[in-house]
């Protein structure tokens, strides 16, 4: 099972280290992680995506919750959550109409075009990890030069 965890943590040095160390020493895996300060500068929010069966995910949540620097830890239901990841693709342009094709593809996924060169183009795509993977598959035939991804940021919908 793919799980999205959201953590409200103390905004202090060393917390990210402790969180990632916990995953290591408990034999869990981090699929992606993103961190940013919240509206209250005393706290940061971490969004971690991970894989595991139900029991494992429950253990991860409990172990994270046990950490003294975590204020709140939740396993989000992806159907009741807005979650997005930002990705940037650098794609090769080989043929004359590649640029137009990539443009079309980017449009279809709601992506933005940056830095158009003679032999490459950059696409910024904010979407779910699934959509990003789908885009990646379709971009592969052009030749992907580099990809950078931020990891997921997520918030539960109100009333959910």
């Amino acid at each position, binding site marked *: 099972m793919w799980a999205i965890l959201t953590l409200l943590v103390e905004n202090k040095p060393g917390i990210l280290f402790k969180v990632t160390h916990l995953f290591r*020493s408990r034999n869990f895996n981090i699929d992606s992680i993103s961190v940013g300060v919240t509206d209250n500068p005393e706290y940061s929010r971490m969004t971690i995506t991970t894989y595991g069966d139900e029991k494992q995910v429950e253990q991860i949540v*409990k172990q994270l919750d046990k950490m003294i620097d975590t204020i709140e830890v939740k396993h989000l239901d992806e159907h009741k959550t807005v979650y997005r990841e930002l990705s940037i693709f650098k794609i090769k342009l080989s043929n004359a109409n590649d640029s137009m094709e990539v443009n079309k593809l980017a449009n279809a996924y709601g992506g933005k075009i940056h830095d158009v060169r003679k032999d490459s183009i950059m696409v910024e795509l904010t979407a779910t990890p699934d959509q990003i993977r789908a885009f990646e598959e379709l971009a592969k035939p052009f030749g992907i030069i580099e990809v950078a991804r931020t990891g997921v940021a997520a918030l539960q919908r109100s009333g959910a």
Partner: protein
Amino acid sequence: MNKMETMTGARALMVAMEKEGVKEVFGLPGGANLPMYDEFARCNIRHILVRHEQSAAHMADGFGRVSRKPGVCFATSGPGATNILTGIATAQADSSPMIAVTGQVPVAMIGKDAFQESDIIGMANPAVKYAFQPRSPDEIPMVVRKGFYIAETGRPGPVLIDIPKDVQQKEASMIFPDEFKIRGYHPWTTPDIANVERAIEMLLGAERPIILAGGGTIISSAFAELQSIAELLMIPVVTTFKGKGAFPENHPLSLGPIGMHGHAEANKMMTEADCVLAIGTRFSDRSVGTFEAFEKRLKIIHMDVDPAEIGKNQTTSVAVVGDVRASLRIMVKMLMQKAVKRTEENTWIKHVKETKEYWKENLKLHPGEMGAAKILRKLREVLPHKSIVTTEVGQHQMWASLFYDVIQPGTFFSSTGLGTMGWGFPAAIGAKVARPDVPVVDIAGDGSFSMTENSLATAVLEDIPVIVFLLNNFSLGMVAQWQRTFYNRRMIGVDQGKCPDYVKLAESYGAQGIRAQSMDELDKAIKTALKSDVATVIDIPIDPEEDVLPFVAPGTSLADMILPS
């Protein structure tokens, strides 16, 4: 708000520790903690010098387990700090309250590979409950207050306070807080009454109920509550090895520890039970064998203060989160209200008692005069019930589990989770500092004792007369047993020879050394040691070939005990 006072960070540390009630600190100085050491001259805290920082940590650990207040150890930066790591990890594995204070290089030098700099916060991270590194002196009073609170509340554990040298030296105006808040820390959960109710129903409905008391029972001193429940419901009690002595082992309902080296009757009854009330235990592989086999056909009621323990290794039917003493009190009260009191022995209890009787008669023991069972039963016979016993790690530890009955609950302590050889002797010293009024005995093996035997210097110079009860098989016996059992008797790296002579060793430190080669000599030796005001090592040569049995091989179930042939 308390009034402000100007002082150095080092002074503030001492004042704050005095406010926490600290009277003794175990440690060893060096460059980076000298400002703190200098303060010992100006405060009422006694410094107990060790010969190796690992021992200081074990002493603090022993002190903490016995007094249930954090023991404190001091070490300098770099090698001093890394030397206490094993002690910290040992305390963490066994949920023991401890404060470790290390010196650190000055703030401006951190990260510059300074002399004796080590990132002890980073290294210790997975082995501590929490770690602090105050960067300015005025943080120290709050750090100490929070540190002690974290170490001793909820599930106890070690807290590291790493103080850069300039933070010790600089002055600041200090406020010593009474009130504070740690937003992400909620150590005590109030037990859910409805779940206690369900637990009672489940126990009353069970045909073959059993109680499994773990280390948490001892940590919370829930002895009277446990006994009330066992007696009211007439349920037999097994323990984990860490929970040994949570329940008087001479009680008719007591079956002793389960597990890899559990009592035969305890393992038998555990595998036959249909419902277990598990109190303050984390279901370690050493106690339950394989997780799958253990929970098969068994309804588990789990009481634990740490929510993360619920469902970690076993599937539970009912969970009661909270301090077990509080949970058990609610249970006792409910049983009283319901006027539940069983007086008739049912078939299960009769079967339990018969099984116990059978194994008492039929467990084959070493035939010699100096067999392990005879030696430990002799110790039990001579020692007053209030005596505190610690152990090292190995066969002698398991023999202690099998043959030394704990009669007064909470008087038996061992390094169980990490299994740290060399723990028992310094821990005994720490225990004796906490309880100078009772005899303290370390049941030791020669290999383990070798690891921290230089603590004899501390015992002698600081006047801490503990007894080392050394079952000397001249080998790393537990490993030797595995080599005999699983490696076709290829004995590699286990022979310790007759080296050193432990009587002479003791004497060279100014301690008392006695060799006991017969039951008569042993009887006299224990009595002499009990009367002595200096630490005593009783060296008891035993048969290097004696095995600890029964034995549940790793990865097998409690039903598959290897028994003496």
